[in-house]
């Protein structure tokens, strides 16, 4: 089964060299006394050439994380602390730069060049009154000022054929393309300057499953060829398990579990991860009754004390309301995975439930 999983997710991250490190990131919405704390101390590392999946329900802060890390967060969103380190040149020994403390000029030079983003609903983020070729060339013109127009046009054609669109469509307007093609144009645009990191925020949510699969296969193929790293954000965990090398699951503004895709799928360690995986009816295999997760996603303005998931959790203990769990090693001390749950603290919980210790 492991072979089949790598069929899509491709190259293993042998080097494990970090490219983007998010450290203790805090983000709030709104000013004054009680901002909504959308991200609370998030730590996440993206390695070179890796596809990192970010999963969670709406409102858990996954898009906020992407926008904060690229400093694209619109007001009233406010970065309240932390750093985002970008490791530019490979093995050059240069110190990493903190994206959050860049000057405007540095930021402008770095955006799209180092870290590019494919937005949620990308199909609608093309300008309807310009031909797509022009929109592709704009980004190149802004960053490669000494390029000629002919070079830029050539690059635009090359980019389109890279994502499987006939190069003569450069002169098409967005409305002349189908949803899937517009999404490909957005991906081509993000890759225009050969960024090292590509952030994809729900890139296929608005598309049909058939188109979704085609686009994902294309992104993975491009990743293998061009070697960029991807942060892939979606609420569809079953999709992530196929696409991602590693998965981080978020709940109420925190990462609650981080592990390789197959580990998350086969051996979830957090009750929420377990519940989320059992919220998707399987297409094959035995049919069994599913329960989903009782209750509703939390209100970030009125989070319960201690563990934010405790009100929906089947394994809640007394300690859960007093101690806020932090991301740490699992109880079984598995390398390469982390979980934020008190059940993994042997001093607090006598045993790990069977469903979380397989």
């Amino acid at each position, binding site marked *: *089964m492991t*072979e*089949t*999983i790598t*069929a*899509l997710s491709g190259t293993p991250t042998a080097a494990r060299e970090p490219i983007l490190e998010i450290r203790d990131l805090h983000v709030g919405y709104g000013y004054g006394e009680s901002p909504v704390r959308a991200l609370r101390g998030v730590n996440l590392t993206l390695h070179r050439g890796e596809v990192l999946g970010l999963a969670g*329900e*709406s409102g858990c802060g996954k898009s906020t994380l992407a926008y904060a890390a690229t400093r694209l967060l619109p007001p009233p969103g406010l970065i309240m602390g932390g750093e985002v380190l970008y490791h530019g040149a490979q093995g050059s020994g240069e110190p990493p730069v903190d994206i959050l403390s860049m000057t405007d000029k540095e930021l402008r030079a770095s955006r799209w060049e180092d870290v590019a983003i494919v937005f949620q609903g990308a199909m609608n983020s093309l300008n309807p009154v310009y031909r797509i070729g022009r929109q592709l060339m704009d980004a190149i013109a802004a960053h490669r000022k000494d390029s000629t127009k002919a070079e830029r046009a050539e690059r635009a054609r090359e980019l389109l054929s890279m994502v*499987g669109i006939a190069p003569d469509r450069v002169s098409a307007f967005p409305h002349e393309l*189908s949803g*899937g*093609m517009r999404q490909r144009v957005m991906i081509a645009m993000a890759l225009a300057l050969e960024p090292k990191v590509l952030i994809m925020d729900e890139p296929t949510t608005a598309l*049909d*499953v*058939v188109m*979704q*699969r*085609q686009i994902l*296969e294309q992104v993975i193929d491009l990743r293998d060829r061009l070697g960029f790293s991807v942060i892939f954000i979606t*609420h*569809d*965990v*079953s*999709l992530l*398990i*196929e696409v991602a090398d590693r998965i981080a699951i978020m709940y109420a503004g925190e990462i609650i579990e981080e592990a390789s895709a197959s580990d998350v*799928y086969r051996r979830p360690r957090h009750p929420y991860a377990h*519940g*989320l995986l059992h*919220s*998707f*009816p*399987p*297409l*094959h*295999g*035995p*049919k*069994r*009754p*599913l*329960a*989903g*997760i*009782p209750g*509703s*996603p939390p209100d970030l303005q009125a989070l319960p004390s201690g563990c934010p998931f405790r009100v929906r959790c089947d394994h809640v203990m007394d300690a859960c309301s007093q101690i806020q769990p932090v991301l740490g090693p699992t109880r079984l001390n598995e390398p390469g995975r982390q979980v934020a749950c008190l059940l993994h603290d042997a001093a607090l919980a006598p045993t790990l439930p069977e469903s979380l210790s397989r």
Partner: protein
Amino acid sequence: MSHPAHESETAAAAPPLRATALPPTTDPVLQARGLTKHFPVGGMRSKSVVHAVDGIDLSLRGGQVIALVGESGSGKSTVARLLARLYPQTGGEVLLHDAPVTALRGRAFRAYCHRVQMIFQDPFASLNPAKSVRYTLTRSLRIHQPKLRGAKLEAALYALLERVQLQPERYVDKFPHELSGGQRQRVAIARALAADPEVLLADEPISMLDVSIRIGILNLLQDLRDRLGIAILYITHDIASARYFADETHVMYAGRIVESGDSESVTQQPAHPYTQLLVRSAPDPEHMGGNVTQGRGAEPPNMVRPPTGCRFNPRCPFATDICREQVPVLAELADGHRVACWGYADAEQAAAAGTDLSALPVLGENKVEVTS
């Protein structure tokens, strides 16, 4: 279409969710016969139409869930709206207990609504944000049961909320913005139940909800089906949820039904090349790496000028001339499992189409064995 207790291989290995011992198939409550809807486009002088739905046959029976699966633009929501009488149809008919329905407004329409209710996709839009849950539900109760007043009305209101698993005391005076998506959808379901309907038309009832609460809504609808014997039409683009929830699944492509049968056969042994593409494309961690090559790279068809013959033919790797010229007949594969594909036609059907077996497409190993 009969509905036998299906026993495909997978179903035999693990017992199905609930014993499929539904009440022995009763007469259909709501039926569509040759239902067709064309929307005019291109202004006053234009004669072009969008072929949204072309000749759909469906039967909804009490205590049964029928899923209609298809990609966006395949016409599945139009079918629901036609059945809810929100549009007049271009052709064909809707039958309620074998009587043709023509009502579109007035008293007759209200009488129809009393029996056929609809749940919409987006509970954030389908509830009035300025009115409390109490108002929304009592209004629906008063419209459909005008004699309810006072304490009886209050009791009915509480019973409705309990039926959708919301604690009445806690939720009756809430406004939609105070509720989560799942709770709102439950209120929308309660509003539909206020009419005490025989049929629920659920148009993508879970696609706007958070993933962890979707199953809860499906389980609730399943419970209503079992306890109240309501017929449910479940419209979705997610074939895995159709397998979980529906007794029968119909797959739509470009305004036509291409395959139908009990959910287990349709998802485990998809026969039509389009259903096969759909099943193979669905994210499934257990069965990965099956490279999807058929039909890829192609776009959904232009519905103003849909392809002649089988509408899937431009994307189908097996298509032959007959697929491009003639609409495929429905072939029966097994009891109740039917597919509209020339690859399954027999000599008789080929002869009726003025050709012979050699002209039919060869599906090779993709062909599902015919057992009937």
